[in-house]
């Protein structure tokens, strides 16, 4: 009666799925705008010169932040954000908040690079043409550059969104409930591999939806090339 078994497990697994979706949306809402700021910050030429050396404090800070975020395990970052405040100041964060916080600042570092490559790929001529028509810098960015950047960054951003769905499993390390956690618990309580298989299928479905959404966006922006 495998069917009964599955229906019995579904409520717990669906709870986990809702948690994955929550983690996904909160992380996207926070990390995409943040990633945008990261891209702009890293490109910021603001600074001064010492001899032949350009000093760009903001760009440097952003680069160090990106090195840490991209250079250490996300699992370690989750644990650090969850437990460091307790060890240092004897205060602790709610698990969900810690999870979102860790995911958001980690993913913003990656989005920053994706958006930066998009911004840098727009030819200089676009800025020059806009300037000659009298567009201000802000108008140029939002009216001329950004729409073209969005089109270019859609494929890598889609990939990153799919990785995020799967990375939700990492929140297990700080005991944040989510799909992987539900599957693992069900696996030991029922001595069956089935929960793991169902969880895998659910992950696959979630990501198929994400992929489809991105395909639609791509199609919608396919009316022009360049």
């Amino acid at each position, binding site marked *: 009666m495998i069917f009964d078994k599955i229906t019995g497990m579904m409520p717990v697994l669906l709870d986990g799925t809702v948690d994955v979706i929550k983690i996904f949306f909160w992380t996207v809402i926070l990390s995409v705008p943040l990633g945008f700021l990261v891209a702009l910050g890293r490109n910021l030429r603001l600074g001064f010169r010492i001899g032949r050396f350009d000093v760009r404090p903001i760009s440097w800070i952003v680069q160090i932040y990106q090195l840490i975020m991209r250079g250490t395990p996300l699992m370690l970052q989750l644990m650090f954000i969850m437990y460091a405040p307790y060890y240092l100041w004897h205060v602790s964060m709610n698990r969900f908040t810690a999870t979102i916080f860790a995911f958001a600042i980690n993913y913003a570092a990656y989005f920053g690079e994706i958006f930066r490559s998009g911004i840098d790929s727009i030819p200089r001529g676009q800025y020059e043409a806009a300037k*000659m028509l009298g*567009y201000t810098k802000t108008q140029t960015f939002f009216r001329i550059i950004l729409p*073209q950047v969005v089109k270019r960054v859609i494929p890598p951003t889609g990939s990153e969104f799919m990785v995020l769905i799967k990375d939700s499993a990492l929140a297990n390390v700080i005991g944040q409930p989510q799909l992987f956690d539900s599957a693992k618990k069900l696996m030991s309580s029922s001595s069956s591999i089935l929960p793991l298989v169902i969880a895998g299928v659910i992950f696959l479905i979630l990501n198929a939806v994400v992929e489809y959404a991105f395909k639609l966006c791509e199609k919608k922006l396919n009316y022009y*090339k360049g």
Partner: protein
Amino acid sequence: MNLIEAKKIKKSFGRLEVLKGISLQVSEGQVVSIIGPSGSGKSTLLRCLTQLETADQGEITVCGEKMMWTESGRAVYANKNTLHNIILNVGLVFQNFNLFPHFSVLENLIDAPIRIRGISREEATQRARKLLRKMDLASKENSYPCELSGGQQQRVAIARALAMQPRILFFDEPTSALDPELTGEILKVIRELAQEHMTMVIVTHEMAFARDVADHVIFMADGVIIEEGTPQQVFENTQNARTQAFLSRFSQNS
């Protein structure tokens, strides 16, 4: 009235001095072509006059407004508002067209007039359509730049510049990125503009065209003006060895 007055413009990139004190005037209705070998500074001069590069020294006045001048050896630029007003008087057609790929042909022509000049959408559209008819592109208003040939794109770019109603139009090698069989259509458009007494400064490698269309020809090499004058003076009666060498190389090639 002189729409452009430039005095002793100097510009270096690092140690390379690209403009070594160029002076020129362009009066209303005049068509000036600038010719010369690659690397002579023609495009840099154009870019300094259109604010795409900052000159290191000299003085530039556009349409009676002082754009930049020199104080104790250093370039000083006018305030932001003045520079913006000056840019609105000036149009530039690029070698690589630089149309906005995400805008249709019509949007390329009306976006700036609506947003920057504050013209109503109806009026901007009406004017754009008129320009497109003139450019023989009336059927293309809903096309996107990627769907057009190079020659068509360049005509859209000219129309886009004209849609802002500039008092002076600059061309930076407008046919250099085009197949030889497409250059004719661009040159024809520029000739028509010349007949309407549009003030134009044209950097070009098309010698026959430069001779036909211009009232005044400037020959530049190594960052200086070697010779200037009427097309007859420069193309037919030049006494300058450098000009002669350049022109004879060109007639051999074509």
